[in-house]
């Protein structure tokens, strides 16, 4: 009787738990996507996008997660992070060739090394403590030296130039962090399927680490439940952007010279792997192929031009290339501007592929096509001036990209317009920048800084305490050809322990961020399929300001001799002892002492033996002989003094031992 009732009870428990389980699975969701994009300079961009969402925490604290990584949610809860982004980057995004005016570049082009910024939801005086704890936690999670960002000389608090978050934003960069698989593995661990199944199984380490650009990014947003609806909560967005160089495959076409033809590629040729079905935990698993605006317009032109000998076999009349897999859907960007072709997205769903029938997308070019990317309004670069190890100057050069007639600029420009440029630069304290030496050259002519600077905020560096930070809004005329900013600096001298292992290589100054607040990039897609919208595409739809990073600067600093500490200590102390001893010796000499010393020396030379004998005899007789010399008289006195001194020292030592030992 007892047993069945228990069984029933257990069954009931199980049922109720599965019910709860099922409901929460509905809420927590994971989506994986991959975007592939041919680039104008014969490269291929692969952009992995994984998004995990968790519902807001229950009020009673502990929360059970099924898909969302526990470590991240705990960290978020503990340090009350509102928003956070961590990126590991190797290589530099080539803004001229790979585009500087699209969502891809302004969101995913990151400075080399590690960049971390976080917005906290704590009172302002606790932000620094939270930041320190966060850096240590992240350093543990990602096996990277993010904990170096803990010291106040490594991070800064930009007010307005980087993001609008007054007071609670902290920003730090480690330009020399080496990025390797040991950082990727913990990042993959946060995915429900890791790299065992689904799109992430494409991440073949040798092929992605030999890429020209590699950026692994983690973006966390937590939205308080009372502000938004229930479907908000924590969103973890993990992206991996690589620019690969496909080795050109042999194609049957020979009547176009290979050098003009874009290299053909397939997933298996660039990654060395194929996708064996989706990750079963993912809500959706999709691969996109993007043809950007410039390419599409070029294709259209060439189609019109050479329509006679293109056998129409592609999709939508595109005959210049061939896809090995039929796309499920073609999404055309809705372009509000007229006269410009919009970009195309081919969507492939991985759901229907399996181990026996792996997904391997290939693109074969048939005719050469040359196109160019959209550029940011100004091209930014940064370099050092001057020689020697004492001083130098940093120059930021903004050059017009000569595309002022092209669409985005022409569209957003007003007549008699002004181009606003945000400059945000953090310089470590050992580069002592003199901000008063700021000079501005517009079109190679020295101009008054006040005429072009709309807003400036400078935090001078403090030695070993905080880095120097400069935030600036420049207001340049639209027709500007070039603008250059120069800042003079002195190089500091560090303590021997503060140099990195290879000090002669130099020190890296983190990239400066150049933003164009008047220019926003967004892609508009037809909105009728909002329920099927993927997180990546909705990310693309968000309007984001154009942002680009400059190069990392390598500043050589003077080094001391690292093998010398003992020698320096001993030599310096010797000199001090020489000073102290010889000066005291000179001061100590009495008025007649020198002459007496000389006399006694002379006396000792002549009759040392007789002197000794007389002393001996005097002792034997019992001090009957009166002492001849004054020194012999004073000797017992000195001895007693000496004994007193020794006693005093001993007492001091005993006291010391007693109290402090």
């Amino acid at each position, binding site marked *: 009787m007892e047993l069945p009732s228990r069984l029933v009870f257990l069954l009931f428990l199980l049922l109720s738990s599965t019910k709860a389980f099922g409901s929460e699975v509905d809420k927590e969701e994971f989506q994986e996507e991959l975007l592939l994009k041919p680039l104008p300079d014969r490269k291929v961009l692969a952009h992995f996008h994984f998004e995990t969402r968790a519902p807001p925490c229950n009020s009673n604290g502990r929360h059970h997660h099924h898909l969302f990584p526990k470590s991240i949610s705990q960290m978020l809860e503990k340090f009350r992070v509102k928003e956070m982004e961590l990126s590991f980057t190797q290589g530099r995004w080539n803004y001229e060739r790979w585009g500087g005016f699209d969502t891809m570049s302004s969101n995913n082009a990151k400075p080399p090394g590690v960049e971390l910024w976080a917005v906290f939801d704590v009172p302002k005086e606790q932000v620094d403590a939270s930041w320190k704890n966060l850096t240590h936690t992240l350093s543990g999670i990602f096996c990277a030296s993010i904990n170096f960002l803990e010291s106040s000389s490594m991070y800064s608090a930009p007010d307005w130039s980087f993001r609008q978050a007054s007071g609670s934003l902290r920003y730090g960069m480690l330009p020399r962090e080496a990025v390797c698989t040991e950082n990727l593995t913990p990042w993959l661990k946060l995915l429900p399927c890791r790299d065992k199944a689904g799109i992430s199984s494409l991440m073949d380490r040798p092929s992605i680490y030999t890429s020209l650009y590699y950026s692994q990014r983690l973006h966390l947003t937590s939205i308080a439940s009372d502000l938004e609806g229930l479907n908000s909560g924590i969103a973890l967005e993990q992206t991996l952007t690589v620019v690969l160089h496909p080795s050109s495959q042999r194609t049957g076409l020979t009547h176009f010279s290979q050098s003009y033809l874009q290299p053909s590629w397939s997933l298996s040729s660039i990654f060395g792997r194929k996708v064996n079905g989706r990750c079963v935990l993912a809500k959706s698993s999709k691969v996109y192929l993007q043809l950007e605006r410039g390419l599409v317009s070029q294709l259209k032109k060439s189609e019109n031009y050479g329509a006679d000998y293109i056998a129409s076999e592609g999709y939508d009349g595109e005959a210049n290339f061939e896809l090995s897999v039929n796309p499920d859907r073609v999404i055309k960007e809705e372009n509000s501007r007229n006269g410009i072709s919009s970009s195309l997205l081919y969507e492939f769903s991985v759901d229907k592929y399996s181990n026996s029938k792996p997904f391997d997308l290939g693109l074969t070019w048939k005719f050469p096509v040359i196109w160019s990317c959209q550029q940011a309004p100004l091209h930014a670069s940064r370099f050092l001036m001057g020689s020697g190890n004492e001083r130098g100057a940093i120059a930021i050069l903004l050059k017009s990209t000569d595309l002022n007639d092209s669409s985005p600029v022409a569209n957003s420009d007003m007549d008699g317009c002004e181009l606003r440029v945000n400059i945000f630069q953090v310089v470590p304290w050992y580069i002592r920048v003199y901000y008063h030496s700021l000079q501005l050259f517009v079109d190679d002519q020295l101009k008054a800084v006040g005429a072009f600077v709309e807003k400036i905020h400078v935090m001078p560096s403090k030695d070993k305490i905080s880095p120097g930070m400069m935030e600036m809004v420049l207001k340049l005329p639209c027709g500007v050809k070039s603008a250059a900013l120069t800042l003079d600096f002195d190089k500091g001298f560090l303590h021997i*322990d503060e140099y990195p292992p290879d000090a002669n290589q130099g020190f890296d100054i983190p990239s400066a961020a150049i933003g164009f607040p008047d220019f926003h990039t967004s892609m508009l897609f037809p909105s009728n399929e909002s329920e099927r919208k993927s997180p990546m595409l909705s990310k693309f739809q968000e309007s984001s300001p154009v942002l680009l990073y400059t190069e990392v600067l390598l500043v050589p600093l003077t080094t*001391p001799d690292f093998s010398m500490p003992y020698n320096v200590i001993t030599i310096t102390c010797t000199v001090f002892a020489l000073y*102290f001893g*010889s000066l005291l010796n000179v001061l100590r000499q009495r008025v007649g002492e020198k002459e007496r010393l000389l006399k006694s020396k002379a006396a000792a030379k002549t009759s040392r033996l007789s002197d000794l004998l007389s002393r001996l005899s005097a002792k034997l007789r019992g001090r009957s002989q009166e002492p001849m010399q004054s020194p012999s008289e004073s000797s017992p006195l000195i001895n007693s003094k000496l004994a007193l001194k020794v006693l005093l020292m001993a007492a001091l030592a005993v006291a010391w031992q007693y109290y402090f030992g």
Partner: protein
Amino acid sequence: MLDRCTMDLHCYSHFLVHSLLKELKGNLIIFFADIISALLIRATGHTLQMAYRQSLNSLDIVDLLKSSDSLSSGDVAALVYLWNPFTIAACVGLSTSPVENLVVILALHGACKGLVPLAAFGWVMATHLSLYPAILITPVILLLGYGPDTPPRKLFLQKGYGKNGDNHSSDNCGQQETNHSKAEVTFSWRPVIHFLFWSSLWSTYVLVLCSISVKPHGSLWEMFQRTYGFILTVEDMSPNIGVLWYFFAEVFDFFRSFFMIVFHLNILFMILPLAIRLKHRPCFLAFIYIAISSMLKSYPSVGDSALYLGLLGLFLDELADMQFSFFLLCGYIGVSLLSPVMHNLWIWRGTGNANFYYATGMAYACLQIILVVESVSAVLNHDRKLRKLSVTKLRDGNS
């Protein structure tokens, strides 16, 4: 060929003079600070020489005076100060050390002349500007109490006793002389108390001004931390001609505070022994203090050396038979030529090493040590010589 050489030289000198003038024009303050310092040194030198002659006269050692009659030590010191390459370098390099030197000299001059408010002002300003002149309070008080440099007081006392014992019913002249010498021996407290009063007045004034000016940016305590704290904890390790920068760049972190205390105590340790031994020569004491602090301070510059080398000229008579003077001169010239070369090789060309430059710094420190030690011993020997002379005079008089 010769013409071309002279042409080049002419052009070069013209250019040099032109650039020098241009540099000087923009910084009249520094330029005039140097000129005024030289004038004050000259005036101080005259006072000192007068006192020296007077004391020698009162001791009846006139034959020593004859030899040094030709040179006025004040003029020599002022010229040495003005034509010293270090002074010129500090002036052209727009260093603030000429101003610091000016206030130090102002304090000494005021104390020599008995102008108590001036001495207090100079001392307070010098301490405010570079902290190390704070130790000059001992010589300034001694100067005010005893008056300018004299031979040891014992000599006067001996002389007085000798004269008294010699002829009880002496003439009025002799009596006056002994009275005079006895008056000199006593320490007069009045000017010292005045000095303390004035210096407290000036320092409160300076502090009030400072607190008003730093009020919008922070507290007075923060100002002390950023100025005097920066001097005492040797934070900036940029190369200079001293010895501490490389030491603190290389020393292990856990020894840092220990050595910081030791090196700063090294300056303070010597105050008392020197003051006891040289209390009859407060001006010379001040010179030695300045030399020591410019050698051991955390961020020394050639401007500091210019000050003590200028003051060296004041003691022309006392230091007449100093040892190693030629060696010191050669050393100073050698170091001041080698040091820029080594700096250039290390910092600008990158071919040298930090040790090369550090070696010139060490050599310079050694030279300064020899200068200090030898000048102290020369002055002590000079006193011995005076004593011997006066003793023989007394004996001659007695016999």
